[in-house]
């Protein structure tokens, strides 16, 4: 037993409490069943999110964990992650809705077999969405990953702006309606258990089942655990160590035989993969993919989650993601209504992105390693990476404490 505990501890990092993770998982599973009780509590009851809100929070946290692979592990600033969310959501729209009314194709779908359009079961759609988004990541990555970090940021931002515009204008590509323009694609099929439903208990269709939110929540929770698991395993893999080497010193990594382009492209592709799955799942939950959802602010919102939690730190990003997503989708408006009740005319939801901006700047200035810092990244920030200049321009010509003999 203690052997297992040691192994888990080694996997999680020195400071992690081994029992914390199972405890959080247990609480997570129990939450929907005690939700009403919690919401009736005095004072804090109003601040308890509903199960539906939790699904949204988890979807965005998944994207943040995906983004963390690109930004946190590999040190590539991606300002266009929203593009992957869009690709995922539209894949769900294409493969599981009545959008392509020219054909009628059903594959294990949880909706009525007579409906026109392509209806593939959401389980397959999730995987296809992940793979397609991965492909999108590679396509975006190949021409741009050769560029220096800050150029990469602006190019990804460019893609993040182009894809929503393509989606918005995509109702007539040479007469072919690909994305249905500003109206978006709706409704998108719900998740369900088309085969297992024969046993009973498992609903064939979440939408029509008695506790839609609860089912969506449970699956979302599993997907999040899966994402975190993959993320931990990737970090400790050969590929993950190559990413971290690139983040710390690209030249040295290349000299040690790390293939830069391939490694970076993998980080892009795998980071995109989870964004695609989360996007498709969220699209199914809210039963639609609309171009208005995919704008630059979402990318910054996700980036802010990563920064708040700690770049490269999986647990940090998960916590940061849950906190910010909570604030965004329920907390700020609750706080706002409390403030309004107190008679002050101030609506914090209007300034949400100003608040995220302040969080970003304050974190960068005072706690750049994040709420739950990753050990290694913290050392990089505190001791500097090895391309610091000999001369400290800040104190005009004073030598830094770096000793050239140590290099």
């Amino acid at each position, binding site marked *: 037993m203690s052997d297992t505990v040691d192994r888990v501890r080694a996997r999680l990092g020195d400071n992690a409490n081994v029992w914390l993770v199972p405890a959080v998982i247990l609480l997570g599973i129990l939450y929907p069943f005690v939700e009403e009780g919690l919401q009736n509590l005095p004072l804090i009851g109003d601040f308890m999110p509903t199960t539906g809100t939790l699904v949204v929070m988890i979807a965005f946290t998944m994207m943040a964990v995906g983004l963390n692979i690109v*930004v946190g592990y590999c*040190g590539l*600033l991606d*300002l266009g992650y929203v593009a992957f969310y869009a690709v995922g959501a539209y894949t769900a729209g294409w493969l599981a809705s009545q959008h392509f009314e020219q054909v009628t194709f059903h594959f294990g779908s949880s909706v009525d077999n007579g409906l026109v359009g392509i209806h593939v079961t959401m389980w397959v759609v999730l995987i296809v969405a992940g793979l397609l988004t991965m492909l999108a990541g590679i396509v975006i990555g190949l*021409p*741009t990953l*050769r*560029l*220096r*970090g*800050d*150029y990469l*940021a*602006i*190019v990804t*931002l*460019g*893609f993040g*702006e*182009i894809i929503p*515009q*393509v989606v*918005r*204008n995509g109702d007539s590509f040479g007469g072919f309606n690909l994305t249905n323009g500003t109206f978006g694609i709706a409704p998108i099929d719900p998740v369900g258990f088309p085969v297992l439903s024969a046993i009973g208990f498992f609903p064939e269709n979440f939408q029509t089942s008695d506790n839609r939110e609860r089912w969506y929540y449970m699956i979302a929770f599993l997907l999040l655990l899966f994402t975190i698991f993959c993320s931990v395993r990737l970090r400790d893999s050969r590929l993950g160590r190559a990413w971290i080497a690139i983040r710390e010193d690209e030249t040295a990594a290349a000299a040690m035989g790390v293939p830069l382009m391939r490694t970076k492209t993998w980080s892009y592709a795998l980071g995109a993969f989870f964004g695609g799955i989360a996007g498709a799942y969220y699209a199914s939950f809210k039963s639609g993919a609309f171009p208005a959802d995919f704008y*630059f602010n979402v990318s*910054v919102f996700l*980036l*802010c989650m990563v*920064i708040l939690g700690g770049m490269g730190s999986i647990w940090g990003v998960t916590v940061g993601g849950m906190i910010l997503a909570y604030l965004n989708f329920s907390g700020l408006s609750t706080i706002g209504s409390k403030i309004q009740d107190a008679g002050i005319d101030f609506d914090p939801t*209007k*300034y949400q*992105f*100003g608040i*995220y*901006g*302040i*969080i*970003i*700047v304050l974190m*960068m*200035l005072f706690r*750049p390693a994040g709420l739950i810092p990753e050990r290694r990244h913290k050392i*990089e*920030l505190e001791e*500097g*990476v090895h391309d*610091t*200049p*000999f*001369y*400290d*321009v*800040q104190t*005009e*010509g004073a030598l830094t404490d770096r000793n050239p003999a140590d290099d």
Partner: protein
Amino acid sequence: MTDLRARVLRTLRNPKLVNSIGLGLVALVGVWLVVNFIKGPQEFVNVALDGLTRGSIYGVVALGYTLVYGILQLINFAHGDVFSLSGLVASTILLSVFGLTADSSNLVVIGGIVLTLAITVPLFAVVNATIERVAYRPLRHAPRLTPLITAVGMSFIVSNISLALYGVDYESGSDLIPQGAAFSIGEINVTWKLIVALALIVPALVVLSWFVTYTRQGKAMRAVSQDTEASAMMGINVNRTISVTFFIAGSLAAVAGLVFLLEYNIRYDTGFELGLIAFTAAVLGGIGNLAGAVLGALVIGFVQSFNEGLTWHAPGGDWTRSIVFGILIAVLVFRPEGILGERTPEGA
């Protein structure tokens, strides 16, 4: 298999191939322009003049990006938002404090514009330098990603300050300048818009280029952007030089903000998109290169106007953003050093 892959990769990386694809794209655009010109020469020139108006405004904003990038290698995302805040403040001063309306006489309007500039230019110079002092200076030794992320955060803070002060409504001072053409040559109309834009922007550019070329501080700026450590060793006060750079960038943003207010309409998030366009212009011209920024901005201005104004096979306004970013990506892939930039060993 490996052999084939290696061969394909080698072909793809062949600079000749990359160059000829790039030139092919440029040639396509050229053909498109020529056909449009033949189909309607007057319309074409009018659209081009509109592009000149836009391009000159983009140029002033692009200079702000390129100056800062040249000296700190930082994309100052907040620059665009400083620009729109300055335009909004200018609207308060012009329209509310001075109370100018469409009926005011020309002399009063000109006086009002000059006085407004006298207020907003120093104000936003200080605002921009303060942003540098507070948010970027403490991070000068952090990994490169850190100040870049901070700049994104600052951008949101500044745009939310605009939102808090001015709400979501558009402000416009376009009533103040005469509509329509100042004079016409044949069917080609030179609009007042263009004249006002050039009358404000050209002097700003002349002053800037005099400052950078001839003054001591301007020389210091160029020295620091070439080699920070060496200039520190030569006794240049690096911090002051960086502050001066932000100061100048801020005053350029204020000029651009006022011109934009007079020609179009502006609100809290105008600066975000315009900033991206201006940054693209700076990259297109060769980032860090002042003449390049203006040239790139004019090109982008023309591209935007041609795209929205021409009739033969133009994608139209819905696609402007995609086209501008498409250009950005194409430039970074085919010619990362920009039109006027020099090829550096490490690439772009």
